């Protein structure tokens, strides 16, 4: 598997265990970017010449590929810069129209700052109120939901897979409960950590908005997706006004384009969109059965091995990522020493400061898996962790 990821040609010993931050890119994705810039780097939706038509065709085909990937229709897929922009688009383009003073937005305590700040800002602007679903035994506490839903609730926004705790939240069950209570309440799902690991079908989930990033899905940075049903998109406002998103413009008034074009003002990241489709094809060709089987086996091996490290406490664990702390050693030092073994892990609060506060840890070290990882990577990690113990003279508990 490592052969198809060119980065290993330069860094043959790399043990990249930070795919939750961003995944490495397979050759097919890199080639797609290169091909666009090398052979048909024209703007889209404009030129009446051949290479522009080719670029336009590939760009729109990419929309079809992405739509199919998450069980959606092409006219429901908006290309954005990433999960963060997708959520901000909903907060501004939908929230500012639909959220009023006294309305309530339900979030969870495990949200990434990207699914927290847009709502904090919206709440401050509109006078709406934020409410939180908490944790129980390390899982999302769904039983609380019925106590915090009210006639004022307008939106529930939550992550599908936590980027710190790793577990998958019961989105479908939550959606059923929310919609049974009041079908007008909208549900937004942050799919940033999900799309590379589990099969997503937005219709089946029963939600209204779904956001994800290309770069965690083996695709390029700078490209992401917002899915919403076309009835909702039609009534939303874009973030950017300008070229490419209009039907008619006169000096004092304009008519915006229909459908998703309205949200893609300006020249979009064409190469990134085309390469995102390539990343989706890469994942689809592997298949989610293969992916989760491989990741789960490796995760079991990791957990088995890591349990032997003295004073290491697992903070959260899912099928593709786990976080831990080593008593007496700061996570930054852990990451630094691991780096000497070519092991890349994430240290810090992973853009989830409130969650760390609740968990009562200042910072954690996170190991996250991608499709290229193997037992060698885990073995290197363990070697590095043993060295951490040596340097910091971590003693086995008596």
């Amino acid at each position, binding site marked *: 598997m490592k052969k198809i990821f060119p980065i290993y040609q330069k860094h043959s010993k790399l043990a990249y265990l930070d795919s939750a931050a961003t995944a490495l890119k397979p050759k097919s994705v890199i080639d797609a970017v290169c091909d666009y810039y090398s052979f048909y780097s024209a703007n889209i939706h404009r030129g009446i010449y051949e290479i522009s038509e080719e670029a336009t065709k590939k760009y729109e085909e990419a929309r079809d590929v992405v739509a199919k990937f998450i069980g959606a229709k092409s006219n429901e897929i908006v290309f954005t810069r990433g999960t963060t922009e997708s959520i901000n688009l909903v907060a501004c383009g939908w929230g500012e129209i639909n959220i009023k003073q006294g309305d309530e937005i339900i979030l969870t305590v495990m949200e990434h700052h990207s699914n927290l700040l847009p709502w904090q800002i919206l709440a401050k602007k509109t006078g709406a109120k934020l409410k939180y679903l908490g944790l129980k035994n390390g899982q999302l506490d769904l039983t609380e939901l019925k106590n915090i839903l009210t006639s004022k609730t307008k939106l529930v926004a939550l992550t599908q897979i936590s980027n710190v705790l790793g577990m998958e939240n019961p989105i479908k069950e939550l959606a059923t409960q929310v919609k049974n209570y009041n079908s007008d309440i909208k549900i937004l799902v942050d799919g940033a950590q999900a799309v590379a690991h589990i099969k997503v079908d937005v219709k089946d989930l029963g939600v209204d908005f779904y956001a994800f990033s290309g770069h965690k899905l083996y695709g390029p940075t700078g490209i992401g997706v917002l899915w919403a049903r076309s009835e909702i998109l039609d009534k939303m406002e874009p973030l950017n006004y300008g070229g490419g998103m209009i039907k008619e413009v006169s000096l004092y008034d304009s008519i915006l384009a229909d459908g998703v074009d309205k949200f893609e003002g300006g020249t979009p990241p064409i190469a990134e969109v085309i390469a995102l489709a390539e990343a989706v094809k890469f994942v689809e060709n592997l298949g989610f059965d293969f992916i989760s089987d491989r990741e789960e086996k490796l995760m079991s091996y990791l957990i088995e091995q890591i349990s032997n490290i003295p004073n290491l406490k697992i903070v959260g664990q899912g099928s593709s990522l786990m976080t831990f702390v080593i008593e007496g050693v700061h996570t930054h*030092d852990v990451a630094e020493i691991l780096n000497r073994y070519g092991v890349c892990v994430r240290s810090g609060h992973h853009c989830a400061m409130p969650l760390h506060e609740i968990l009562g840890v200042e910072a954690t070290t996170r190991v996250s898996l991608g499709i290229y990882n193997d037992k060698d990577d885990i073995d290197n990690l363990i070697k590095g962790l043993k060295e951490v113990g040596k340097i910091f003279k971590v003693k086995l508990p008596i």
Partner: protein
Amino acid sequence: MDDLYKEIIIDRYQNPQNRGVVEGGVEAFEVNILCGDKLKITAKIQDGIMEDVKFEGGGCAISMASVDMLLDKIKGKKIDDIKKIKGSEIEEMLGVELTSVRKKCAYLGLEVVRKIVNLDKK
């Protein structure tokens, strides 16, 4: 690079000499957003002299050892001299070469000390 975790740094991290609070003193606080290090320094300054100074907080070995050693260095010194301490002196003090990321950790103590000595001005 390989001696970043020298004995002295680990020792200072695990057995700090200057942890605590100077009661009734001035205080300053800073965080290192990258890794969540938090540092609070309290100090008693009299007649332009750093009479006593202590720190509280949590962070990596480099940031904690660095502040602990720095407080040794500034205790009893003239505020005017403390103001002149440069970043490079921190590296000399630790006796290691730091990457730009680790400089953020190592300089955290100096940053807070600078806040403290500037408070004295008012």
